[in-house]
């Protein structure tokens, strides 16, 4: 808020003030701002400088450096041993481990998003009808979202255990033979998808629930008066009005799923798990290349590909948000 600048204030402030303050005031006047404005700006910058410094060191520089490293050959001692141009990228697309990882991660992202969105939408629709114990269910569905990934990966690994696992026991009721869920290449990725869907359903559900509750009650009432049944209300009112939020959740879920690492690391990379590369993911490949084989430049180029995928998804999301605002 600009303070009115009268000549009286100026002289009062300048005449009796100490030299430093007078200099400050002079400088401020040079830029056409008054004394109050100056002290505000000084505070704003002083407060932000340490925070921006942290951002520079921990976020901005590393983000930019990653692109630079991706154009270099690296050794253990020197991440920029020699300039490689686009060599890293060229070999990336002949590296069947990376391509497998990319394929797995894409498959994972698609199916985790698909299942978690469908289930979450169904649950949100049920809970929006204010059933008895609704708040209680909401809390239980949300429980996996807030729990850290490592302990839940450990217990799921145990549930999937081929000999003593809970899942095989439950399936045995239906006469099904035990399966080594995490050991077989064909089932491992689906086992991890199922566990990851379980982990994120609650999050998507809460977002949908807020979206449905935001829809004006009058739409539902009007539909009911016209004699619409529950399914018709959901199909014709809830779903179309929820569309922007639905797309938002789809994009966010896909981005998060592309960064999958922890559950794969815990559940399949130990001495007991791991069917070769059946569940190798992009981040796992980056981790291994960078921190086990010290191929920093090569791993950085993989990270750039991951970055571009996420960037593409983010731009789609921006497009959606803008559409929503218009």
């Amino acid at each position: 808020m600009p303070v009115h600048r009268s000549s009286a204030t100026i002289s009062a402030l300048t005449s009796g003030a100490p030299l430093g303050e007078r200099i400050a005031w002079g400088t401020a006047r040079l830029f056409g701002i008054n004394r109050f404005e100056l002290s505000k700006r000084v505070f704003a910058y002083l407060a932000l400088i340490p925070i921006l410094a942290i951002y520079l060191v921990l976020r901005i520089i590393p983000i930019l450096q990653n692109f630079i490293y991706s154009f270099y050959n690296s050794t253990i001692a020197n991440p920029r041993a020699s300039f490689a141009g686009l060599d890293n990228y060229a070999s990336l697309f002949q590296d069947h481990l990376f391509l497998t990882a990319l394929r797995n991660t894409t498959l994972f992202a698609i199916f985790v998003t698909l299942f978690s969105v469908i289930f979450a939408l169904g649950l949100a629709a049920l809970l929006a009808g204010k059933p008895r114990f609704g708040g209680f269910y909401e809390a239980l569905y949300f429980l996996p979202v807030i729990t850290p990934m490592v302990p839940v990966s450990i217990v799921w690994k145990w549930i999937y255990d081929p000999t003593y696992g809970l899942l095989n026991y439950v399936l045995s009721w239906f006469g099904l033979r035990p399966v080594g869920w995490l050991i077989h290449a064909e089932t491992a990725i689906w086992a991890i998808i199922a566990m990851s869907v379980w982990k994120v359903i609650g999050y998507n559900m809460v977002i949908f629930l807020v979206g449905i509750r935001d829809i004006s009650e009058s739409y539902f009432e009007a539909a009911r008066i016209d004699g619409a049944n529950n399914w018709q209300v959901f199909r014709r009112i809830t779903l179309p009005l929820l569309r922007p939020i639905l797309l938002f959740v789809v994009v966010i879920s896909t981005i998060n799923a592309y960064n999958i690492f922890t559950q794969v690391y815990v559940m399949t990379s130990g001495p007991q798990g791991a069917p070769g590369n059946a569940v190798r993911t992009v981040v796992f490949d980056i981790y291994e290349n960078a921190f086990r084989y010290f191929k920093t430049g090569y791993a950085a180029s993989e990270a750039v590909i991951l970055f571009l995928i996420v960037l593409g998804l983010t731009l789609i999301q921006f497009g959606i948000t803008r559409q929503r605002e218009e």
Partner: protein
Amino acid sequence: MTHRTFSRERLLRKDTALRLLQQAVLIFGAVIMVLPFIWMLSTSLKPPTEVVSWPPRFIPLHPTLENYQTVFQTAPFHLFFLNSLAMATVSTVSILLTSTLAGFVFGKYRFPGRGFLFILILATAMVPFETYMIPLYLVMKDLKFINTFPGLVAPYLIMSYGIFFMRQNVIASLPDELIDAARIDGANEWRMYWQLVVPLLRGAMGALGIFAFMQTWAAFIWPLIITTNRQLWTMELGLGMFQFRYSVELGPINAGSMLSILPVLLVFVVLRRNIVRGIALTGMKA
């Protein structure tokens, strides 16, 4: 008349049936959501012979706390727990401090570069950590922060969503008149931050603090790459490594897992409403 009552009864009965079906679906879903946690608890309370009994039992025949002792003997889990606690606490305090300060400045001050700096901070939030962890590791190496506590906690000192969230709160709950009045009373900008802004944001700080704590507590890939020294391992990393080496001893692993989710679980039970609402309002990643 009779016809009308009849149809209403039928309608009512249909309604009840629908409600029961709804409840059945919700209960089935809830069981799947909670079962792994119950299984974890159950396994952690079983003596070794019972862990691998067939058919599996949910309620242990001879419940015991011995696994909770064994887990501390097989690896220094007390140390891992303290490391996690220290890391999450430092991270939470730092995120609250930086978020309220930057949120206040971005919300209430006009200065050249404001828009650009704010967008820059938000933009970094869209880049996944995994895509720049290699250069970050090398920065830490240059700073001699590998295998140190500062290196472990560094990436968790700031949170762009936190700054965004606090800015929204400052704009919504701190009227310009109040700031001007304080200024006329002779308060300088720093005092205003401590005595006006911080108390006003207490509720928002509670919500953000819970998030910050949970997020840092759950960290895995960064502790995995930045620490080789066991003395610095966190609960999550300790558990992840421990389960490779002692993959047969399921009792202690599950006891350790229980200990790792306990703090989060406690916070959740006490502050459930704030957490769920907070996530919904800000779209924050859990």
